[in-house]
């Protein structure tokens, strides 16, 4: 795998809406590289006959019945909202997107 560049970190930071200073970008590029290096060791034991796993439990088909249960009230739902209006969550203007 190619080394994590400063630009990669800047791109990830933008996607994750995290503001980072130039210093932090430099620092994080190194740190991420080290983290990936550590995780990479898994590849040494993973062989072709072991399928990738996304879940620690070997379970599948966990379903619930299609039954309605009470929801939160409007007040409860909005209780953690930084801003609200007309029974809705109020968010700052969304620019440049539609």
């Amino acid at each position, binding site marked *: 795998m190619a080394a994590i560049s400063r630009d990669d970190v800047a791109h990830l930071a933008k996607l994750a809406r995290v503001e980072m200073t130039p210093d932090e970008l430099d620092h994080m590029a190194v740190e991420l590289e080290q983290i990936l290096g550590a995780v990479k060791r898994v590849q040494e034991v993973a062989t072709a006959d072991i399928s990738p796993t*996304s*879940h620690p439990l070997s379970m599948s088909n966990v*379903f619930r019945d299609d039954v309605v249960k009470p929801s939160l009230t409007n007040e409860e739902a909005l209780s953690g909202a930084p801003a609200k*209006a007309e029974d809705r969550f109020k*968010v700052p*203007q969304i620019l440049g997107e539609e």
Partner: protein
Amino acid sequence: MTLDYKGATEKYEPTLGLEVHVELNTNSKMFCSCATEFGASPNTQTCPVCLGLPGALPVVNGKAIESTILIGLALNCSIAPYSRFARKNYFYPDMPKNFQTSQYDEPICVDGYLDVEIETEDGPKTFRVDIERVHMEEDTGKSLHVGGATGRIHGAEYSLLDYNRAGIPLVEIVTRIIPGTGKYAPQVARAYVTQLRDILRSLGVSDVKMEQGSLRCDANVSLAPIGSGLLGTRSETKNVNSLRSVERALTGEIERQANRLEAGERIIQETRHFLEESGLTRPGRSKEQAEDYRYFPEPDLVPVTPDAKWIEELRAKLPENPADRRKRLQKEWNVPDSEMTSLINAELVDVVEETIKLGAEPTRARTWWLGEISRLANEKEVAPTSLITTTFVAEIIALISSGDLTDKLARQVVEGVVNGEGSPAEVIEKRGLKVVSDDSALMVAIEAAIAAQPDTAERIRGGNIPAAGALIGAVMKATGGQADAAKVRELLLRHLGQG
């Protein structure tokens, strides 16, 4: 020179691609037990799971998986023995979790097709639309943009979010590119969405109301010079809210692209919005860079692994394909195309079939649903099927067939039932609508009529049968229209020695 649609398609070959989103009609949401009622007051159908509160864990709605497999089977897809959910990460307030739970490289259903038939200049022609995938995801919340002149997002001061819709099971059906439709591209697209809607309705998995957004279509189209074998740059048109709009949006978009190409301009790969009033499209958000959703397998959900037994059980439940069924019923009922089209357009095929199954005479079943009941429904601006049950219609028709009701009386019975006066039997009882079939009662009226018009009676005795009309009319009047005219005629003629 500006190219019109004809000119555009004489020079350029359109290639279609369609993405249809269907909201399933489950009672509860995809990953939580909140209700899915349309039109509930804002943010009253939410919980920690669909609001994305910390620590909340999703659990898959089994019914939604079943519906999705049914859709896949009806579209001739293979059902994946192993599929997973994935997180599609993005920051946009329509999803409070900052990701949408969707499927990425492991959808539930793959590789299907749907054959659609359209009318061409050379008669009916069938196009095969290949289905690439049918996958599960969840719907997003609804935004309301406040401030600014247009109510649109641009210029809005702030936005208001209602998350009642966030988390409602959504199925995405994606076609492969559909080549070779030529100038019929818009019709093929419309026919495809129409057939898809009919199939979904027959499966009973969705309300499929385009105007309410439970069925939504994104239409992709690109143009290339005819015979070039190339594939042009496509645009994706959203906000197409009716079957008619599917056709209009594509027609407009093909014209727009052709004229750009004629002017030597480039087609930009972009999302465009269909404008219902003008039939044109306008550019939507321009993507500065390729989307980077950083999909990864959803760690809070386990894989879906339907076994062959489950799939076969579901396959056995599949109803007859709606297009085949219509052809079969049209043949059985022996009705012309025009009448079948009327029944289909009025969405009366199901109730007519049911009414016939309940024993009603087929012609009468069709006539009553298309005629009197539709007329009343029209007056009240509701669906005919909401006015009266098939059982009641079948009962009324049985009474007409047995001679207990005349058409005129039956109309009054229908009116009574529609006005909430009770069952047909109760309406007949309350309004006293039974045909006077008692011969002796009729004979009294007949004799009275003869006594009142002795000359007419004499003429009939002398062989002037058409003169009977006047006396029959008098009897019908005397019985308040509750006699069966044919019966009166029979008794009268017999009485006057002409029977």
